[in-house]
């Protein structure tokens, strides 16, 4: 039985379709990554799956009583709010000192309990957020661009940590990313999104798919693939090539 399933999900905001006809499911223990350029609706999809955003068509079903651990894209703790890491881990449910210490140890930031959340580095904060999510013993961890603001080694270490957590706890992992290479190795399944699902499959299948290459512009080869792709589909506007016009350089550099 899937933990979360979406059928024909559409989200419309301000007269624009952010998502159209998205079918999605995630099974227990799976690591699924949603890839897509900026503005492709990745965060909206995650928010709709969690229930933070109402869909305008289709339906989202979650396993009854599903325990979700959510790691938001950013967490800004206002300097006016004093908050130690230890106190933060007890939001919204109090946890024991031992459980808090164990969670921090598991995410590689043992001993940070007395530090102020607002004074943590980007990498420390991500690990503290993950530790907090793990404290609810989630069946699924949901992470929205968890490595934003981390450097390359930090990113690789964070994905490795996610795999370790999955191996140790059996939790499913659903994450959103706009970077390609590092994240794909850690995933069982990858979904390319650009308003709708462009392609889906194992990392190997997806990285060879023309839709994926079109979406992210693979240098000259990518441009050629795009050309062929558009040529093949030039009367079908499926949205996957759209991004290429605007973000070609950014995609090629990624």
């Amino acid at each position: 039985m899937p933990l979360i399933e979406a059928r024909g999900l559409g989200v419309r905001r301000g007269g624009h379709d952010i998502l159209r006809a998205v079918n999605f499911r995630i099974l227990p223990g799976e690591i699924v990554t949603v890839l897509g350029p900026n503005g492709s609706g990745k965060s909206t999809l995650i928010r709709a799956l969690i229930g933070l955003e109402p869909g305008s068509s289709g339906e989202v079903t979650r396993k009854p009583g599903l325990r979700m651990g959510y790691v938001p894209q950013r967490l800004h703790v206002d300097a006016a709010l004093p908050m130690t890491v230890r106190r933060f881990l007890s939001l919204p449910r109090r946890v024991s000192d031992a459980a808090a210490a164990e969670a921090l140890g598991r995410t590689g930031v043992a001993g940070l309990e007395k530090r102020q959340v607002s004074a943590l580095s980007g990498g420390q904060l991500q690990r503290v957020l993950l530790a907090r999510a793990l404290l609810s013993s989630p069946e699924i961890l949901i992470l929205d661009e968890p490595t934003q603001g981390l450097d390359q080694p930090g990113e690789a270490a964070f994905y490795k940590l996610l795999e370790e957590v999955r191996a140790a706890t059996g939790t499913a992992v659903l994450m959103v990313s706009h970077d390609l290479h590092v994240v794909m190795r850690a995933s069982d399944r990858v979904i390319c999104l650009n308003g709708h699902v462009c392609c889906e499959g194992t990392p190997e299948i997806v990285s060879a798919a023309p839709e994926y290459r079109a979406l992210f512009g693979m240098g000259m080869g990518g441009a050629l693939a795009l050309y062929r792709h558009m040529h093949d589909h030039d009367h079908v506007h499926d949205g996957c090539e759209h991004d290429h016009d605007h973000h070609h350089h950014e995609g090629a550099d990624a």
Partner: protein
Amino acid sequence: MPDAFLIHAALAGIGLMLAAGPLGAFVVWRRMAYMGDATAHAALLGAALALLADLPIALGTALVALAIASLVTVLSSRDRAADTILGVLAHSALAIGLVAISFAPQVRSDLSTFLFGDILTVSIADLAWIWGGAAIVLGLLAWRWNALLTATVNEELAQAAGLDPRRERFVLTVALALVVAVAIKVVGALLISAMLIVPAAAARSFARTPEGMALIAVLIGCASVLAGLWGSFIYDTPAGPSIVTAAAAAFAFSLAKGRRAR
């Protein structure tokens, strides 16, 4: 032994601060200062309407403050850049309140009571109202404390944990309206938000956790009440403003302390 009116005044101020300390911390954390202003100024309108309709003043202030606070909550949650609207509302509420009061001739004479409070004439009945209101606010905040705090840190985090941030906002709205209705007698409509913000802001430098900040805000607030009343007695200055002045001095001191700690 100080006079009874001074003891009543001290008890009124301390009762108010028991609720205003923790609530003020939320006002500071959530940057609701304008909302505090709008609600406090609406209390004046509420008092005027209550007088005109021959209803108890406390009831009128509580109801109108609740209405304005709800309106502000809706406006500010719909649009994060609602700063201007809040400013308009806060000052319009004050102006309309002043206009409305001019239709109630029996109050015109002691308008300053409503603007600056009259803590030195607090009666036993007033004390019961102040402590009762403060107890309700404290109970409300204690009941929702962890949920309120989670929603204050990050609304999405709260939602993903199954909480409803809108409900938590409403809890704060009700608490704010109650504190305003309680405080109008103590410090008056113009200085209510000072009693919320200044002790909490002063507490920030000394606190490491949210609970610590709320508690220190209560202590600083109570000390300000006593110091302000003492100053008012010795130098014959108005009591409400003297209390706020004492709190402002505590804030200035905390800034110096905070800079040294850093």
